[in-house]
């Protein structure tokens, strides 16, 4: 040890740089954060995810085995074609090694196709649909934060058990909405509930009045909102305007982020049950990390997508360090082997399965009454911790071709 340390510092750096050249192509690690920077999902993902990825790089020391790490970002506008062409350009012409975040299923699946073809890593955080770890799974693809299966297991289970037996769905008309509806129907029926119908609305949508009227005339007890972000917010607000909740029906937001609760306000959102992969105010560790994030984001608090992006990026950097190469498959193997633990307190009991699913504890939460909140963004009471293996689709049910049966 002492002998090694005595070698001249200059020589050591030269040696390390030389080694690095051999390990990492183009002597640089580049992570692209591809997200919705301007649209419906820009609050729950967007700039906050870019900041989270930057924090991950900084917390890791800015370098992997001496090679500098750089974050680039772009706006895919929730469009599959834009996402896919940016991903192609990044991989082909700009030496990007991995793409993170990827909100919106359509965009995530498009990027997954490109990443798979090029043998590059994708770290999906914002997109929710289960095909990412089933038909569309990839040896270099990861699904980190949550998925529709876990959401349905959490929220729908709780609602049906509280007596909400008959359901009608307002579904965002694209892969994510369909998938969330299908997963929720599965849980509702398994618990003896009944599905009275569904109506699909365009994405994104601003006027829900006619869809809400249809839901109202179905007579179902629960109107399940199989959508996200601004769509969910608008649907909830307009349901209030049309007196739906006064009429005895209740709304179940199947995917609600803390940023949505913030826009709705506790007055409107109180009492709602939801499933989340992260809550900033859960323990000291989550509070400490979230406050650091918050300081850079004008006092907002992170959604699960933000924390998930941080966690995924830092784990990817660990995988790179262990694999000593940026070759996608080898890094992915290391990532599956390494324990998942980081400063955000995100992945409790986390592990990565063969299908690329990062399984970790989820939380069933209830939105606080305005009087209960002790400060800004103090929104949830965590009702129950759902162990990862209970929340997520069992590996035996996965249709992923990488799963050995």
């Amino acid at each position, binding site marked *: 040890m002492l002998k090694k340390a005595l070698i001249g510092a200059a020589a050591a750096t030269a040696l390390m740089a030389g080694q690095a050249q051999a390990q990492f192509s183009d002597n640089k690690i580049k992570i692209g954060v591809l997200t919705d920077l301007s649209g419906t999902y820009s609050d729950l993902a967007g700039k906050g995810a870019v900041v989270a990825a930057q924090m991950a790089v900084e917390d890791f020391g800015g370098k992997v085995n001496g090679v500098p790490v750089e974050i680039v970002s772009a706006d895919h506008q929730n469009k599959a074609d834009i996402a896919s062409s940016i991903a192609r350009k990044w991989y082909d012409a700009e030496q990007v090694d991995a793409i993170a975040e990827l909100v919106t299923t359509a965009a995530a699946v498009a990027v997954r196709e490109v990443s798979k073809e090029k043998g590059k890593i994708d770290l999906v955080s914002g997109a929710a649909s289960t095909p990412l770890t089933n038909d569309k799974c990839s040896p270099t693809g990861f699904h980190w934060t949550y998925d529709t299966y876990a959401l349905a297991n959490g929220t729908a289970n709780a609602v049906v058990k509280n007596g909400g037996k008959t359901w009608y769905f307002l579904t965002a008309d694209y892969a994510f909405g369909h998938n969330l509806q299908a997963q929720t129907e599965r849980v509702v029926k398994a618990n003896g509930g009944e599905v009275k119908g569904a109506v699909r609305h365009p994405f994104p949508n601003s006027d829900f009045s006619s869809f809400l009227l249809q839901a109202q005339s179905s007579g179902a007890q629960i109107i399940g909102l199989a959508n996200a972000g601004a769509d969910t917010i608008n649907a909830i607000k307009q349901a209030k305007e*049309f007196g739906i909740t006064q009429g005895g029906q209740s709304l179940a937001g199947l995917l609600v982020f803390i940023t949505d609760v913030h826009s709705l306000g506790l007055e409107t959102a109180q009492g709602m049950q939801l499933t989340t992969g992260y809550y900033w105010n859960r323990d000291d560790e989550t509070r400490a990390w979230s406050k650091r994030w918050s300081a850079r984001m004008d006092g907002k608090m992170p959604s699960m997508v933000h924390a998930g992006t941080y966690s995924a990026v830092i784990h990817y950097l660990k995988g790179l360090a262990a694999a000593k190469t940026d070759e996608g498959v080898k890094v992915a193997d290391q990532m599956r082997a390494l324990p998942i633990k980081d400063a955000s307190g995100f992945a409790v009991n986390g592990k990565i399965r063969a299908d690329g699913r990062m399984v970790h504890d989820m939380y069933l939460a209830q939105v606080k009454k305005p009087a209960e909140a002790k400060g800004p963004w103090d929104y949830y009471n965590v009702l129950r911790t759902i162990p990862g293996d209970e929340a997520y689709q069992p590996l035996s049910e996965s249709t992923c071709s990488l799963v050995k049966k």
Partner: protein
Amino acid sequence: MMTLFGIPTAALFGQLLLGLINGAFYAMLSLGLALIFGLLNIINFSHGAQYMMGAFIAWLSLTYLGANYWVALAVAPVVVAVFGIILERTMLSRLYKLDHLYGLLLTFGLALIIEGFFRQLYGISGMPYAVPKELAGGWNLGFMYLPIYRAWVVVASLLLCLGTWLLIEKTKLGAYLRAATENPALVQAFGINVPVMITLTYGFGVALAAFAGVLAAPIYSVNPLMGSNLIITVFAVVVIGGMGSIMGSVLTGFMLGLLEGLTKVIYPEAASTVIFMVMVIVLLIKPAGLFGKGA
């Protein structure tokens, strides 16, 4: 539950009423388009963007100046009209001697600029605008719960359309306008300043769009793309009605709104396409449009 033709009446009346509200917007926008077309012979593609500007002015004046809905309803049309008049004087007026298609292309370009500008500043997720407290709440009509604000939209747009019609059909100013539409050279010869009339008509047309935009703000969240998606449907409405008559465009707007509402009950999948289908049928039977004169 009561039914009519096998459809629950509650659902039917509810959707028809919502259709009427959509129809109100079609009517106000196609009225403005028809007015501008009548005198300027151009299709104002930036009409949707000007409608969106109306909504944004309402939102901006509430957020930054604390001006309430009623102030916005009065101020936004004036601001947008002034903006429109500037556009007409500096750009559109240079194109009157050319093919009318250039007017369409110019206003299309302007629409892109305006839309891009607001997108750059405010994103596309939409800004909430609360219903004014005077019009909050709703009435339980038995078959549906009608928010008062939506009823107000229908009434306001009916009054506006009727007022415009009276202005054009029953006043001297309107008579000049109708005459200038028919034969501008002759009207000019009578000593009436036609260029000023053209400018004012354009201003009035886009003011109608802005007024509609303020009405829309509390219903649809204020969004840079709110106009561009609507305007194409309104184009179809205009083709169906034919741009010959003011009343025709208003009537077509309301009718098609109702039809859209009805479709939502009978066959929801076709709701977004039904207006275009009607356009195809009208083109086959009466190419000049329902109220049009000649081609």
